[in-house]
């Protein structure tokens, strides 16, 4: 059984349909990458999994259990945690308080504030600083740390490399193996294809609200991916 399954999911913003008949299955312990251009529906899909959007048709299953209409906080209790697009750290809270907010539902597991400071040592000296004063890379590390504090089974990462320096992006992707070792499954959304394909077990390419291509990265050619990405 897959950890997360979407079956024929259609999502609307009022009258505008953003996702058409999305079907994916994410296996426990893998990195599943969703790629595609701006506005292709990748983030909409993550919001549907997190519970911020409710699909009009289709089913969302987590560990075999239907969660279509479950509110976000109950999904966090089940072990679905988010690194939202644009980082969205709490600006008036300190770094340490941001991490504590991640543990709001008090799920048991390997991740504690100390473990996060070990994973991202750059956060250690900043723990008493307000999150609003952090650089983009520091905020991104904090956003990932905050999501891990929920001890998730599935972590949703939305555009984690957007707007960051290459060296910072590298450091963030270097943390992925540690996450997987600790029992996390990663569903990552990226516009920047390069990095994510080196770590992903499965990839789905989004185009105008539909999945144009799906498979194992090593079995797909660059031409296929480019064609699906740009729709040419």
């Amino acid at each position, binding site marked *: 059984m897959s950890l997360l399954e979407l079956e024929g999911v259609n999502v609307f913003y009022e009258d505008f349909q953003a996702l058409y008949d999305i079907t994916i299955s994410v296996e426990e312990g893998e990195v599943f990458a969703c790629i595609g251009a701006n506005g292709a529906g990748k983030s909409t899909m993550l919001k549907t999994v997190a519970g911020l959007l409710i699909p009009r048709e289709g089913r969302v299953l987590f560990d075999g259990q239907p969660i279509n209409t479950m*509110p*976000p906080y109950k999904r966090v209790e089940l072990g679905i945690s988010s690194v939202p697009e644009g980082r969205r750290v709490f600006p008036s809270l300190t770094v340490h*308080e941001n991490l*504590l907010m991640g543990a709001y539902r008090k799920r048991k597991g390997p991740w504690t504030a100390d473990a996060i400071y070990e994973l991202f040592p750059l956060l250690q000296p900043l723990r008493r600083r307000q999150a*609003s004063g952090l650089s983009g890379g520091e905020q991104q590390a904090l956003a990932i740390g905050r999501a891990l504090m929920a001890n998730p089974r599935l972590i949703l990462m939305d555009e984690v490399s957007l707007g960051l320096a290459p060296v910072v992006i590298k450091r963030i992707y270097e943390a992925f193996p540690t996450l997987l070792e600790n029992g996390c499954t990663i569903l990552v959304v990226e516009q920047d294809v390069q990095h994510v394909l080196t770590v992903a077990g499965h990839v789905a390419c989004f185009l105008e609200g539909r999945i144009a291509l799906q498979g194992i990265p090593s079995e797909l050619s660059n031409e296929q991916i480019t064609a699906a990405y740009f729709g040419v």
Partner: protein
Amino acid sequence: MEWLNAIIQGILLGGLYALFAVGLSLVFGTMRLVNLAHGDLTVLPAYIGLIIVGTGVHRFNPLYVIPIVMVIMFIFGYALQRGLLNFVVQKGEVQGVIVTFGLSIVIMNALQEAFTPNSQRLQVGSLNSASITISDQLAIGWLPIIIFILAVVVIAALQLYMGRTMMGRAFRAVSDDQEAARLMGVNTKHVWGVAMGVALLIATIGGVMYGIRTTFHPMLGADRLIFAFEAVIIGGMGSSWGTLLGGVILGVAQLLGSFAFGPAWSILCGHVVFVIILALRPQGFLAKTVTA
């Protein structure tokens, strides 16, 4: 010496205004709701206190009744938020203003219907008039001093609650970014309920203490709402100590105005000082605003 008396009484009055204002500020901070019923919701607990105190032989001291009324108002606030206000919080500011304006009228008229428009008072016997005499012209009542100390204690406790507890952090997180807070597992509907409960619990202390200090009637809500707004704006949004400072400035302005121009000018002087501060320092004195 009389001007000194006016200043001291004004400072002490400011503590009362702060007790009215802190809840208004807390509610606006956590859910961006401008609660126009807040003034009436500070009048309501005085009447609940009146019922509990009773008029027959079993007279309780109103001071002992405060904790009971606080619990009642907390539960009432939580239920009000989850049963009514949560439905308008996310619909935009206008809807919230309309609903709480309606609520304000309902509470005021219900109190008039149930208790008549006549003035009432909660009696605490000798404490009502006990005072410390400093000189011939300067005597400070114990009751205003107790109210001011209560205001300081309440604000310090609120600061600790906001800074040290999970629920307090959730208040601030929801205030910063509601959607991100939901993604961290915060049930915003519950958190807003608790925030309204805490706001009314604090309003209860102010409302009942006012009822002990002087007489009250169902129409007081509108004035209190304005004083509370002014205290919050003068002090600066999001700062509890600022709200106390704002209350003190407003109280001193009112009583100095009364001393200088006569009692009829008291309220107007408070408003004028407020408008001057709003023009010169619109963000307030101790504003804490942080953006991403």
